C-alpha cells in the first residue's frame, strides 16, 4: 500500500469484503505457514509475476493481424490465435483449414506479436517448435520475409492468418482485432 504506482495491492483495495480480509489477517492460512513455506510461496508468486509481466505498449499493439478478405471473422481471441500459431487448432469456426504464417524470428514485429498474443518469447516458441520438429510431431508455420510477403500469403490462402507492422500496406487483406 505504498505511494508508488504498482505498490498498491489492488486485490485487497478493490474487492468487496476487503476490510474483513484485512481484519482477519492474523488468522489467515498464510500466517499459519512456516517461514520457509512462506518464502517458497513468495518465490513462486514472484516467478509467476516475472513471467506475466505486461509488454510495454500492449494497449496499442504495433502490429496488425490479417486474414483473407473472405474470412467471416472480424476479431480473434488471443487463445484462438495462440492455438492456431502453435497448431493446437487447425480449423476456423467455419471449418476452413487455418494456415498461420510467421515472420522471421529476428524481426521486431515477430517479437511483439509473440510477446503480446502468444504470451511467450520468440525463443520459447522456437524451443516449442524444435521439440515438435525433431520428435516428428509437427512443423512450424512458414516464416516469410517481411510484411509484403505475409500480405501476399494471406491473400493467396483463404484460411491464412498472419501479422504485419502497423504501417504496412495490406492491400485487400482484412485486418482483425485481437481480444
Amino acid at each position: 500500500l505504498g505511494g508508488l504506482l504498482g505498490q498498491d495491492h489492488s486485490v485487497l483495495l478493490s474487492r468487496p469484503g476487503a476490510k474483513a480480509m484485512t481484519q482477519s489477517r492474523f488468522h489467515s492460512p498464510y500466517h499459519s505457514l512456516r517461514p520457509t513455506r512462506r518464502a517458497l510461496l513468495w518465490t513462486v508468486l514472484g516467478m509467476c509475476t516475472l513471467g506475466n509481466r505486461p509488454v510495454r505498449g500492449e494497449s496499442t499493439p504495433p502490429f496488425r493481424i490479417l486474414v483473407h478478405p473472405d474470412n467471416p471473422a472480424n476479431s480473434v481471441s488471443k487463445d484462438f490465435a495462440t492455438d492456431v500459431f502453435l497448431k493446437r487448432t487447425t480449423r476456423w469456426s467455419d471449418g476452413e483449414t487455418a494456415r498461420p504464417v510467421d515472420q522471421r524470428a529476428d524481426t521486431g514485429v515477430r517479437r511483439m506479436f509473440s510477446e503480446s498474443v502468444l504470451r511467450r518469447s520468440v525463443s520459447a516458441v522456437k524451443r516449442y517448435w524444435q521439440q515438435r520438429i525433431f520428435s516428428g510431431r509437427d512443423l512450424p508455420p512458414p516464416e516469410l520475409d517481411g510484411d509484403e510477403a505475409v500480405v501476399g500469403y494471406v491473400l493467396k490462402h483463404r484460411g491464412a492468418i498472419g501479422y504485419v507492422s502497423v504501417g504496412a500496406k495490406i492491400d485487400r487483406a482484412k485486418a482483425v482485432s485481437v481480444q
Partner: protein
Amino acid sequence: VDYQARRVLRRRSWLSAVACGVSLTALPAVARADKADAEAFASPIEVHAFVSQGFIKTTDNNYLADSKRGSFEFSEVGINFSKQLTERMRVGMQLFTHDLGPLGNYRTRFDWFYLDYRFRDWFGLRAGRTKLPFGLYNESSDIDAARVPVLLPQSVYPVSNREFLLALTGGEAYGMVPLGSAGSLEYRLYGGTVFYDTADATATGTNIKVPYIFGARLMWQTPIEGLQLGGSAQKLRIDAEAVLPEAQIAQLKMAGQLPADFSGPIKLQLPALLSVASIEYTAHNLLLASEYARWRVALDSPLAQYTIPEMSSERFYLMAAYHVTSWFTPGLYYAATFSNADDRKGQYPPAGAPAGTPPLGWGAYQHDLALTLRYDLNQFWLLKLEGHYMHGTAGLSRALNDNQQLSSLTRDWGVFLVKTTAYF
C-alpha cells in the same frame, strides 16, 4: 555381443528400412484419394538437421563416458524429412547417429518414421516408429536445441535408458479435446514394441526383446496460458537371455538350483511400470517445470540369484530457466533419484541380494544440482556450459567404474559439460 545378435539386428535394420521405403512408396497412392486436397495443400519436403559436439569431465567417478580424464565421446547428428501430403496426412523420417561413451558408437538408425493422419483436432492416428510420449521432454530428449540444460534431469530422463524409453514401433492415437473455459486436454495412447539395439556395450544380456509396450499420456492445458499439468504411464516387459559360464552352470546344478538336464541360456524377464506426473509453466521469458516419477521394476528368472522382487524407484526434479536476452538463457535444476523408494538412505542391501551383502549406502540415491548457461550465438548455433554438484552415486554405471560397488565410489563429485549445437 555375439554374432547372432548382430545378425538379428542387421536384419531388423533392413526390415525397418524396407518398411519405411515401402511406406513412402505407397503413400503417394494413398494420398491420391485426397488428390484435390493435396493439390490445394501442396507443400515442399521440409528438411531439418542438427549436429552436436560435447565434452564431459568429472572430478571423480566415470559418468556416461570415460569422464574422469575428460571425454569428447558426446556427439549427436540427426537429419529429418517431413512432408505434408494433404491437409490431414503427413509423413516423415529421421536418421540419427550418436556417441556417448559406450553408447551409440555412431551407428546410424531410423530414429523415427511415421505416417500421420489427423481426422480432426481431437483425433489422429500415427503408425510407424514414433517417439514415446512420456513426461514433458522424453520425445525431445535427443534435441539439444529444444531445451536449456545440456543433460535433462537424469532422474527422469536417463540417457542410459535411451534405447528402451525413446521410441516404439507400433501405433498411436492422439488428439486435443477442447474443454471450453477449462482449457483443453491433449491425449496420447500408444502400443507396440521396442527394437532394442544389443550392440550397446553396456548390455549384459543377449537376445533382448520387448514383447510389448503400451501407455498413455494426458496433458491438461489449463486456462492459465502456458500452464500445463499431466501424467504419463507406460507398461512394458523386457525379455533377455543370460549366458552363464559352464563352470557356474555345473555349480548351480550341484546346488540343485538348476535341473540336471539344463542347457542353454537363463531366460530373464523384466516387467516394468513407469509413471510420471508433470507440471510446466511457460510465460514470456520464464520456464518452470517439475516432474515426479515412480518406476516399478522386477526381475524374474528360474534362478534365485537372478530374481529381484518388484521394487519401486522414486525420481523427481524442479527446473527453472529465464531468457534474459535474445542470446543468453541461464537455467537451474535440482533432481533426485532414489533407486528404492522404501530405502532412500541405502541402509539395506539391494533387494534379492545374498546374505552378507553390504548396504547400498550412497549408491541408493543421487542428488543433482545443475546450473546451465545457454548462449544462442545466432539462430542456428548455440553453446552451453553446465556444472553439476552430485551427492550420491545411484545414477552411475558400474561397468564404467571398473565394476566397483556404487557405495565404494566417491559420494560427492562434480560434472562439467560444454556442448555446442548447430541446427536448422
